[in-house]
């Protein structure tokens, strides 16, 4: 199955705010000329620091917001122009998991009603009894108990709520699920459980997953391919082991160098803050922070092109000169409590110790 494209974005642009003759507000270039191809059955990750346009991209792919230009195709059908029954089908086939499990569940509705809602929308003819059976099945599938259906969201912990969100996303029987930082609001130990749950579900149900994250450990653990975003553009993309093992773009190198446990290489270090998307730098958007920047970086905008490997693409003029920036993980001296925390995190994100079946020990 892996191979054919399920979701494709072409030259996607989203600018917020318009500058008319009365309105002098500058335009925020949240997403600028992004093209993606997501293959059926794979787990695709989009990574980048806060404010780089990851969430906007996710919302564009879902058509929660309309793109300024460019288009998205799902299974060969255009997403941006879909209306009526076509849009209904699209909503059934693509689902979304929100970052914040506290605000994405209506506080006045019981879990059963929340999970049953997509069923009511997409299968209105289903008898109530069958719907309840389906809800119970979905809750069991995400590691909750069927009798939780009568409770309200506030009675659950963050991890359990995220499971409710996942059950709701699964209810309509989607082919593709987009997760907008699905675990970043959770505790580290719970993160691993939810990640493993998502991995298990995508394998069991043959789902395609698109995971937006800023957490490299999460991405390395669960994704097949990864795209790195910086200031609204994709700067590097490719198979996860390629991007993590041999990062080509100086920004990716800086990101990987910032992982605790990796030896910090001075040449792979981004200085300063990310520039404002209101006035992005000319040429390569990373040149203001890039340790390898040259004169042509400030004027010419680099395009994504194959770097060594056909599937591995990078948008940098000088990737051949820069080479690999990151050394293998080493042991830098750290405070013991920090060390313990990272140790727990590593163990958790490798998924060996905590599994989602132990969710019953969670605080309820």
């Amino acid at each position, binding site marked *: 199955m892996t191979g054919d494209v399920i979701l494709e974005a072409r030259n996607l642009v989203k600018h917020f705010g318009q500058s008319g003759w009365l309105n002098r507000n500058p335009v925020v270039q949240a997403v600028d000329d992004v093209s993606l191809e997501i293959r059926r059955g794979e787990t695709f990750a989009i990574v980048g620091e806060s404010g780089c346009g990851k969430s906007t991209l996710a919302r564009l792919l879902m058509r929660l917001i309309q793109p300024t230009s460019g288009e998205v195709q799902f299974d060969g059908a255009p997403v941006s122009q879909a209306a009526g029954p076509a849009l209904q089908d699209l909503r059934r086939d*693509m689902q979304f998991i929100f970052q914040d499990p506290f605000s994405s569940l209506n506080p006045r509705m019981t879990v059963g009603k929340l999970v049953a809602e997509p069923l009511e*929308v997409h299968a209105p003819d289903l008898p109530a009894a069958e719907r309840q059976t389906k809800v119970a099945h979905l809750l069991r599938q995400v590691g909750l108990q069927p009798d939780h259906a009568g409770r309200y969201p506030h009675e659950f912990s963050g991890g359990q709520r995220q499971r409710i969100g996942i059950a709701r996303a699964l209810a309509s029987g989607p082919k593709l699920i987009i997760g907008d930082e699905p675990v970043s609001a959770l505790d580290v130990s719970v993160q691993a459980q939810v990640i493993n749950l998502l991995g298990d579900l995508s394998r069991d149900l043959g789902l395609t997953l698109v995971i937006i994250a800023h957490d490299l450990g999460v991405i390395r653990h669960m994704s097949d391919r990864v795209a790195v975003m910086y200031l609204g553009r994709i700067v590097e993309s490719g198979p996860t082991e390629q991007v993590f093992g041999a990062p080509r773009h100086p920004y990716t190198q800086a990101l990987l160098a910032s992982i605790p446990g990796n030896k910090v290489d001075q040449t792979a270090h981004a200085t300063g803050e990310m520039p404002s998307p209101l006035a992005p730098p000319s040429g390569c958007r990373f040149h203001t922070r890039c340790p390898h920047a040259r004169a042509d970086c400030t004027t010419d905008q680099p395009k994504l092109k194959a770097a060594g490997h056909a599937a591995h693409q990078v948008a940098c003029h000088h990737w051949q000169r820069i080479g690999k920036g990151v050394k293998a993980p080493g042991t830098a001296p750290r405070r013991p409590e920090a060390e313990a925390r990272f140790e727990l995190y590593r163990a958790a994100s490798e998924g060996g110790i905590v599994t989602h079946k132990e969710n019953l020990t969670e605080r309820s």
Partner: protein
Amino acid sequence: MSGMTLRQWLLTDTPTSRRHAKMASFYKGWLTLRGNTMAMFGLGILVALGLIALFAPLLAPYDWTTQNLGNRLQPLGTEGHLLGTDSLGRDILSRLIYGSRITLYIVALVALIAPVAGLLVGTVAGYVGGWVDLVLMRITDIFLAFPRLVLALAFVAALGAGIENAVLAISLTAWPPYARIARAETLTIRSSDYISAIRLQGAGPIRIITKHIWPLCISSLIVRVTLDMAGIILAAAGLGFLGLGAQPPSPEWGAMISEGRRFILDYWWVATMPGLAIFTVSLAFNLLGDGLRDVLDPKDSET
């Protein structure tokens, strides 16, 4: 089951079913309300008013239309006429008792029509946004720009005098504040993640407004309704007083004041007694509304 165990059942921390939990939270709300003496005072008056209206034929010593011209304008405490008689010799107490039915009728109808209309306009304006919001809110502003009674007068003058038209006119003047509250609530709810989540599941705007936004708007509207009741009673009485609401011989309290106005210096009780009735009931609604706000409004009660 004794009363003590029922109380324990209601106050348990671990409800056994959803109905149990609902009843328990209802009981806790009632306990909060019961702690508020003034609210209980208001509630007592209103319960009494309801009972009086329900059993009016049993309670009233005379029929409200029976005239006795030889026995007119009797003072308070006259034999058989506790609150005296009016200019046509009708028993004022009996008329007040029957008048409570009219008052409740008007209040109930307005309290049904105005918030529903406001909810409809406000949530649609808030959810749809854009020019729909602009048009609906400017219409709301136009209604809000007139003093309430003046606007009601204009409507009654156009529609013709009578109780039904008075109800309609008061409702037409009472909905704009509800629309504004509902719109404000909708704007905060609309941008929340769970509404986005529902949209992404493919739910249409009608489903979102009726199933997700209305239930969340209702508690703040209920509080506003109870606080508005006094104003509705006063507006109805005002219309009756001006001769545009209930028509004589109907024992509407405002109309009764209007009739007694001619003799107010010599026979003060004829106008004062219905005035006191209006005052008492308005006060009761305000007191209860204050208490209910403390119970129902989660924003205040959490602190």
